[in-house]
């Protein structure tokens, strides 16, 4: 080790660099503040959504009572005789969502189980991204396929209307399969090997270990994935706008044309309702309801995933 000589050149440059670091401190603080501001953008986004939606929705509910909105059974804001009962829209959303989940839950779960428990790791490494491609296809493409391929195909065997809840729901289910599958797969893979091996040691078969040990242990993740899938289906717009039609009605007949909350919003946006008009405000009233429903589902999903998470450490 050299002794440090204050008059030495290398000491001088060392001191200079220290002083430079000290002056950098202001820069350091500034960068911290800038990065904090970036994180704040997301908070402002939420505030923006809540403020704008509920401000306009408030304007709507000054003209139309809560009772009309939630008790009337007709939704005809664009007709001469206006009704503002939101149930037909909720009905359309529930019907298409139910069909979608009837597809997405079995497909998603069996994909997850197969990839985790049966497939060779090399095969799974190819199949998993292939299944996830389904989530990367733009939803307007699913709408096209539902309207122009699935509906004509199904009309050979079922008396479907040209626009119907079934085709839209089926394609939405395929679209949501990776959402259910991916999160379930993560939950299933998080179940420790020792649990499976313990079960095998007791003389259980592979299938029995899946149904008695693995799935129960991964249940919180699976339920969370299903709730998240429902939230996706409720908020999905293009598939239902294109393939399910624009007729708000109360029905559980999947062969008929229905209108979802999102489809109504797209319909009223396409028209030119002047700002501040009642029609314009229905957009925000329905939007507020949609926002609250998906928010509740997301929070429940988050809560379930954390609340029932088994700790294996």
């Amino acid at each position, binding site marked *: 080790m050299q002794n440090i000589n204050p008059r030495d050149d290398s000491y001088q440059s060392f001191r200079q*660099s220290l002083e430079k670091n000290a002056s*950098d401190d202001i820069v*350091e603080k500034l*960068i*911290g503040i800038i*990065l904090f501001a*970036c*994180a704040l*953008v*997301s*908070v402002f*986004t*939420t505030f*923006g*959504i809540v403020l*704008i*939606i509920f401000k306009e929705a408030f304007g709507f509910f000054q003209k139309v009572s809560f009772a009309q909105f939630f008790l009337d059974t007709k939704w005809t804001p664009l007709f001469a005789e206006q009704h503002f009962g939101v149930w037909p829209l909720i009905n359309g959303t529930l019907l298409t969502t139910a069909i979608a989940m009837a597809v997405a839950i*079995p*497909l998603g779960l*069996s*994909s997850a*189980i*197969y990839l985790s428990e*049966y497939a060779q790791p090399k095969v799974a490494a190819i*199949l998993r991204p292939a*299944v996830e*491609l*389904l989530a*990367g296809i*733009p*939803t*307007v*493409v699913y*709408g*096209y*396929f539902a309207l*122009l391929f699935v509906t004509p195909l199904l009309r050979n065997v079922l008396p479907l209307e040209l626009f119907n809840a079934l085709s839209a729901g089926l394609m939405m289910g*395929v679209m949501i*399969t*990776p959402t259910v599958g991916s999160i379930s797969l993560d939950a299933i893979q998080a179940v420790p090997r020792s649990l499976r091996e313990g079960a095998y040691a007791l003389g259980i*078969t592979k299938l029995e270990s899946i149904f008695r040990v693995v799935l129960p242990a991964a249940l919180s993740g699976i339920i969370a994935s299903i709730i998240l899938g429902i*939230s*996706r289906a409720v*908020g999905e*717009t293009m598939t239902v*706008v*294109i393939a399910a039609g624009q007729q708000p009605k109360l029905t559980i007949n999947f062969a008929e044309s229905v209108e979802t909350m*999102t489809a109504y*919003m*797209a319909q009223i946006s*396409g028209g030119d309702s002047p700002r501040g008009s009642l029609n314009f405000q229905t*957009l*925000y009233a329905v*939007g507020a309801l*949609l926002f609250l429903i*998906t928010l509740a*589902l*997301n*929070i429940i999903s*988050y809560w379930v995933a954390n609340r029932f998470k088994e700790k294996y450490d």
Partner: protein
Amino acid sequence: MATTYQRDDYLDSTAEFTDNIEKRETLGKVFEILFLIGLLIGLFVLALLLFDIFRDGLARFLSPGFLTETPSRFPDEGGIRPAIISSIILGIVVIVVTVPIGVGAALYLEEYAPRNWWTAIIEINISNLAGVPSIVYGLLGLGVFNYLLGFGPALISGALTLSLLSLPVIIVTAREAIRAVPNSLRYASYGLGATKWKTISSHVIPYAIPGILTGVIISISRAIGDAASLIVVGAVGFLTFNPGLFQRFMALPIQIYSYITRPEPGFANAAAATIIALLLLILALNGVAIYIRQRFTIH
């Protein structure tokens, strides 16, 4: 080995226990095949969808002028140039806006944020925003960019709306990439006297870039394919000029939607041809991402 089970000894467990192992293994095989079928149905639909779209649209896609002309009232004429240019500008603006803000937010949450209730609120908030439907972002964009800032139904309003839509995904994936950077790298940098920002800019970010890029591409692909929010913001279904930032605009998914809703049969082919263009654009984006990822991955 003959084993007898006394029901009375193990009431619950033996009641459902059967030692017919062949039958149980056969059932196991049956279910293995069922699970595989469940997996393959999704892939089959994907293949069928792509086949159907190429069958419907390839001829129109390859017809002269489809990519370079403006739309026409007749299904077999004109092209989708304004939609392509709109989508590309939208994508560029989204990247320019979201990458710095998204990576900045991720860096703050991973490297700077104290573990307190305020940080927890920001985190929960971001995961909630990732689940907000695209059409609700449209309502936000309509209120803030069209009316509050006065841009009207212009391309910039659509681009900023898509940026807000993309941010949560970018933040979440960038955080994961930053979290995966080993602490030993940071300590080594601090040990050499580097400041916090120097450590981040010269060690953490270069190491995390492949992961960050993956998130950027996933969310840009989603933004380019999104139509619902743009419908609310005011994209038009028919445009005869290349849009500027402050002009009326469209996008490839909007062009597809607009073609689908026209009654004449030829428009379905035009829609399928536009879908091919959109899928190729998304594919190209992913190709670029994979290339950059391999180029910059630090081994």
